[in-house]
């Protein structure tokens, strides 16, 4: 320290408490690396437990920061820890913990490079937690790469399986393509404004002389994120990647990566572009409408449950995009949109992770994710069948499950500004949900009514960790559905938008 002082180096303005969740994750990554390197074969069983404990430990500073309630801003506002960031950090860490529970048996029994698997998972989660706080272009982009690059490799983790290689390759190519588009848009923004801070960009492009260039930059940035959240017409990678990747990784991509993409999109659009609603509103409106309709229509025709969940995930991305299409009307509509998107992402994470947990459990017996193979599930594993129905009907938005509350906040956000565009989009959300009910209900019908395909009705033995994952996801889906005010207390948008100007 004395040497540094002697040559005139200032200490970086760090708030260690605000960075504690990220520091715990970095420490966890280092511990996993060392245990894997020096522990040998004997230490492999400890990997999932260590990862799980580490992720829960990272939640402690998130809780103390939330209790503290102070908005902490570092580096001239490039890195902000407020309620908005903390909500998503908690979401990513808990979702990551559930993914670890899903992975425990799958990865151990498949002999898939356990140590490295959990290291990459933690690295990706670190990218997500950084993303929740990132408020400038460089941090947003690097957080996006840190959460994506390990995910590309995890998708290809079943090395000897061609489908998994295809999954990784498609995801990688489309992801890199999206990054290039995003970077081009960001470079235009930096070139026009001379700043990478989102707040400064918002001030600089207000009433700018080159509206065409601003429009191009906004469109490129939104399209870049549209790839990440698999919005139509940029969704083509999702079904193949979801089907080919190891199923716990699919759950991670469908929930974690997608939520992080939405967080990035919401942060950039609402902080950097709030003065440009004429550009981003029609674009997001069209993306949301097309995504809901196309995603649901293609999902109707799927015979594989993972592919169906992939297309249903595409359609859900449309619902989540919808509130952002009216977010530029007024401050109140922006606040409603943030609240709706945050609420839906939390609920979506619980119900989608749960659905994948059942898929993993059933595949342990049948080795298949075809919808036909779920026949008679209720007769031999009634608990799994009921859990699956809870998740599917929640995805469809049937009360009293959590999904209906998510849909309700989206409807409220859409009709709040009172514009025609908002009303039309609300109608499309409603119609799309009705279409969706068909394919969700069809799976339920197969599980409850159809006979088991090969007459094999031995019950499925569900391992401890999967049972824990199911318990957590069912609990969230039911509690939020019955008592939505629990969630509504933490999804407010005040601090986020006040920092956004």
């Amino acid at each position, binding site marked *: 320290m004395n040497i540094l002082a002697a040559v005139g180096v200032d200490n970086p*303005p760090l708030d260690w408490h605000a960075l504690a969740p990220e520091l715990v994750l970095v420490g966890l990554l280092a511990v996993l690396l060392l245990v894997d390197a020096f522990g040998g074969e004997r230490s492999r069983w400890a990997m999932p437990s260590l990862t799980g404990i580490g992720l829960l430990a990272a939640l402690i500073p998130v809780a103390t920061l939330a209790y503290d309630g102070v908005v902490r801003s570092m580096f001239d506002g490039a890195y902000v820890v407020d309620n908005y960031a903390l909500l998503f950090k908690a979401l990513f860490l808990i979702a990551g913990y559930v993914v670890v529970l899903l992975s425990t048996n799958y990865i151990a029994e498949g002999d898939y490079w356990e140590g490295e698997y959990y290291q990459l998972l933690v690295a990706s989660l670190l990218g997500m937690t950084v993303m929740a706080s990132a408020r400038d272009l460089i941090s947003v982009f*690097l957080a996006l790469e840190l959460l994506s690059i390990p995910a590309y490799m995890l998708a290809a983790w079943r090395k000897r399986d061609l489908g998994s290689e295809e999954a990784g390759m498609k995801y990688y190519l489309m992801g890199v393509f999206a990054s290039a588009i995003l970077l081009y848009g960001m470079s235009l923004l930096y070139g026009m404004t001379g700043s990478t801070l989102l707040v400064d960009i918002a001030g600089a492009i207000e009433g700018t002389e080159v509206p065409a260039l601003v429009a191009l930059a906004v469109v490129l940035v939104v399209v870049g994120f549209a790839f990440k959240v698999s919005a139509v017409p940029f969704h083509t990678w999702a079904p193949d990647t979801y089907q080919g990747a190891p199923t716990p990784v699919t759950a991670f991509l469908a929930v974690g990566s997608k939520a992080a993409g939405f967080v990035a999109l919401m942060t950039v659009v609402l902080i950097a572009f709030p003065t440009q609603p004429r550009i981003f509103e029609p674009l997001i409106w069209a993306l949301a409408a097309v995504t809901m309709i196309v995603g649901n229509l293609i999902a109707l025709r799927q015979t594989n449950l993972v592919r169906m969940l992939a297309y249903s995930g595409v359609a859900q991305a449309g619902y989540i995009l919808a509130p952002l299409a009216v977010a530029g009307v007024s401050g109140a509509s922006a606040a409603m949109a943030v609240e709706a998107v945050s609420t839906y992402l939390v609920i979506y994470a619980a119900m989608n992770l749960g659905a994948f947990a059942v898929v993993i459990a059933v595949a342990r017996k049948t080795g298949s994710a075809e919808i036909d193979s779920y026949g008679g599930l209720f007769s031999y594993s009634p608990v799994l069948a009921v859990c699956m129905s809870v998740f599917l009907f929640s995805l469809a938005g049937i009360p009293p499950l959590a999904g209906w509350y998510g849909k309700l906040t989206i409807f409220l956000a859409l009709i709040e500004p009172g514009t025609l565009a908002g009303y039309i989009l609300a109608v499309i959300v409603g119609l799309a949900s009705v279409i969706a009910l068909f394919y969700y209900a069809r799976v339920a019908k197969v599980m409850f009514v159809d006979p088991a395909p090969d007459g094999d009705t031995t019950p499925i033995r569900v391992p401890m960790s999967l049972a824990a994952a199911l318990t957590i996801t069912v609990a969230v889906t039911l509690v939020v559905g019955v008592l939505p005010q629990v969630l509504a207390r933490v999804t407010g948008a005040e601090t986020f938008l006040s920092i956004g100007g």
Partner: protein
Amino acid sequence: MSILAVTEVLVAQNIAFAIIAVGVVVAGVRLVTTENVVHAALWLVVVLAGIAGLYILLAAEFTAIVQVLVYIGAIVVLFLFGIMLTRARLGEGETVNKKMRAPALVIAVAMFALMAYSLWGYFGSTELEVMGRSTAELGQTTAQVADTLFLTYLIPFEVVSVLLLAALTGAIVLARRD
């Protein structure tokens, strides 16, 4: 008037520039005329090292170090690995494909013309203006880079290091034979 005339320009710098420039040009010509692919890659090292020397002469020491680390350290090594992995034998028999000489020449001349045109206005002056400020006003560039990297962009910097670690781990798993 000789280029090496003593006016306001430092003599020692000009002599060093002349030596390095001649070396770079000779290596550049050998690079495109040599028959052996591996030799071409090694001549490229000489060219890139010479350019790094020129950066040091211009007091851009950070750019020089990055030039050595990135171009010589990473990109040439990548070339050599690419050659070794795609060709069965490295020997005198390996010759370079010359079919693309004419378009390559056109592109090279066009690039040279473009760069010469854009730098023409500064010919003969001792300082370059960057964004309205002269290089003297901009001060010590390495110190500024360090300050920006470890103060303003500390978190992105750390994120990149974790990213590289994760990429390395995953690449080893995916690439190794088991």
